[in-house]
């Protein structure tokens, strides 16, 4: 049962990611990426990482993709033309991608004997808001504050970059 759910979610994520890369128009591409993010959040839930699943939906599928769709609507973007059968450069690129992918899958298959077969016994409590919040506000308090400084700097930088005239 668990295996079936995993493969349904995984194939959903992979198919929507492939659709995202192959759409010629930008808006369907962005919508397919949102679908991919939602499937990934469901995959996090199968790993008992509840907090990160919620953050994935709120931050990625929510905030970041709203920003991307907003920019797409703001700009006047024509459909691009691209093909996978054009010149020799793209052929080499496709071969490279497929080759590296085959290599990674082969390594994971060979290592699957040594990798753990099921979730750790503590996995259910590791993914909760309570335990992650406890870790973030004690051992990781300094990086947590640094993250807020990064966000402030990014917000200011984005406003300065997108401003009409630098005076």
């Amino acid at each position, binding site marked *: 049962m668990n295996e079936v759910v995993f493969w349904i979610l995984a194939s959903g994520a992979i198919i929507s990611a492939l659709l995202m890369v192959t759409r010629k128009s930008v808006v369907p591409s962005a919508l397919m990426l949102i679908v991919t993010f939602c499937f990934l959040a469901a995959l996090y839930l199968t790993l008992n990482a509840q907090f990160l699943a919620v953050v994935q939906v709120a931050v990625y599928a929510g*905030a*970041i993709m709203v920003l991307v769709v907003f920019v797409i609507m703001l700009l006047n973007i024509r459909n691009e033309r691209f093909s996978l059968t054009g010149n020799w450069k793209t052929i080499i690129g496709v071969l490279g991608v497929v080759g590296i992918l085959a290599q990674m899958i082969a390594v994971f298959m060979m290592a699957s004997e040594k*990798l753990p077969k*099921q*979730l750790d016994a503590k*996995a259910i409590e590791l993914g909760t808001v309570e335990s992650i919040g406890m870790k973030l506000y004690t051992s990781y308090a300094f990086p947590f504050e640094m993250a807020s400084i990064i966000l402030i700097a990014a917000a200011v*930088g984005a406003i300065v970059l997108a401003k009409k005239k630098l005076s």
Partner: protein
Amino acid sequence: MTSLSNYLIVSAILFMIGAGGVMFRKNVIVIFMCIELMLNAVNLTLIAFSQFLGDQQGQILVFFVMTVAAAEAAVGLAIVISIYRNRETVDIDQLNLLKG
């Protein structure tokens, strides 16, 4: 029960789809979205290792990766807007000012 290597394989496939998109697409915004997809594939790897090995640090790291991704999205899209304002295009082939 699903084993760790299945999660790693799904993550590798998603990562290479994103890498292929970065290589073959011409639109800056689509390339940007492909980078987000690659970041998410790595996040899946980190969470899978964290939960299978019983170590919470992987999930803390994913939290910080998401923070940096949000900052990167804001700055990246601002750069796209200012490029479009100057050049009236988001086609990566026409943005060749630094091409040798």
